[in-house]
């Protein structure tokens, strides 16, 4: 039982085919309120620019060849550049051209969530958490002297967790099939990735962590060695045969968040 509940302002935004939850623990100010509005507007703008489901989005028109990159908002070039970086880091397992189509969706959500988090931080909300449909960017603390406690959803038992990751400035992203079926395609085979049921990566910046989680999930079993060699990133995975594994550094994150292992 808590003696006194910490300040908490929650805003839920349905956008990009999922739900973003903003949870601000810094006492509210007009600036933070405006930043929440700006973050929501920003997500809707990003969706309008990057949605591959909208034929009039810049990304759709760029893909169709009816718009040049120069004519796109600068964030399009920024995102495509990030995609190239992650593709290199993941040896081609991350792609923004699945099946030859231009589709940076694997990058956009985490990047947009971290950008929204930055907006809140700059407005003075030093303690907050943005959850982008299951991918989390947390900053500061959850309450006085309390690190953020982020549960990892159990892929087989809805509502249960597998572990709790604890930290202050921390990003946690999970790729998996539990919610939508086999929707992550291994770009090398063109088929849904099957080796893993769930792959959670923990690090500092959600843009990076989320894209790497997508890439790692597509690798299946090979993700094990790959992720072990990623600096600043820890992992927890569930394999298709019902086992789990974690990187040796993960327990430092599941124990206490007072000191992040960096």
């Amino acid at each position, binding site marked *: 039982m808590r003696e006194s509940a910490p300040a908490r302002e929650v805003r839920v935004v349905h956008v990009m085919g*999922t739900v973003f939850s903003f949870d601000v623990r810094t006492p509210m100010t007009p600036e933070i309120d405006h930043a929440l509005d700006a973050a929501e507007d920003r997500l809707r703008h990003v969706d309008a620019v990057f949605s591959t489901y909208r034929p009039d989005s810049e990304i759709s028109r760029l893909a169709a060849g009816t718009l040049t990159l120069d004519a796109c908002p600068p964030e399009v070039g920024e995102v495509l550049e990030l995609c190239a970086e992650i593709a290199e880091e993941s040896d081609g397992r991350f792609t923004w051209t699945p099946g030859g189509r231009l589709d940076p969706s694997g990058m956009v*959500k985490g990047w947009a969530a971290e950008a929204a988090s930055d907006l809140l931080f700059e407005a003075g909300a030093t303690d907050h958490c943005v959850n982008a449909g299951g991918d989390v960017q947390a900053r500061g603390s959850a309450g006085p002297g309390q690190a*953020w406690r*982020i549960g990892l959803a159990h892929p087989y038992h809805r509502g*249960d967790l597998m572990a709790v990751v604890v930290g202050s400035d921390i990003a946690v992203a*999970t790729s998996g099939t539990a919610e939508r079926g086999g929707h992550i395609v291994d770009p090398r085979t063109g088929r849904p990735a099957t080796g893993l049921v769930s792959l959670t990566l923990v690090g500092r910046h959600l843009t990076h962590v989320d894209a790497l989680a997508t890439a790692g999930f597509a690798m299946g079993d090979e993700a094990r060695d790959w992720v072990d060699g990623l600096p600043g990133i820890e992992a927890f995975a569930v394999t298709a045969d019902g086992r*789990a594994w974690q990187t040796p550094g993960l327990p*430092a994150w599941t124990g206490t968040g007072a000191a992040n292992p960096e």
Partner: protein
Amino acid sequence: MMRRAVLATSATVAGISLLLALKPHNGGLAVASGSPAGRSGDAGSATVTPPEASGPSGSVGPSKKGTKSGGKSGASGTYTGNTIDTRYGPVQVQVTVAQGKLTGVKVLQTPSENGRDRRLAAMSVPRLTQEALAAGNARIDTVSGATYTSEGYIGSLQSALDKAHA
């Protein structure tokens, strides 16, 4: 100094909790370990399942030390578990029980402490039920999982956490 030691211990406890959860969950216990913020029962909770029953009658062995306290039913005291040889090395824990309720876990031996083993530990999928989390007073702020749809969100744990404010 003291604070540092406490942090290290609870980190190890949580780490080993995951290791110990590698056997099928037959009635896990809710563990409340010390909080780094000094607020007991608010951090470090996990479901601990006794290591495999290949040893004599489970993990918690006979070397009990402590006294029965109070008139309430349920044992109290400190129990030292047998050392279990796992694939990754020996594991031994000590648990403290107050009136039948597990109040603390201390890790006496852990494989990760000998040799900084870089192998990735394989295990069964740990399961922390909401009942166990509630019993251990484990606060959860948010949930990471496979991307949910707008519809999938509605019945999710995250949705419940979002509604729980104020």
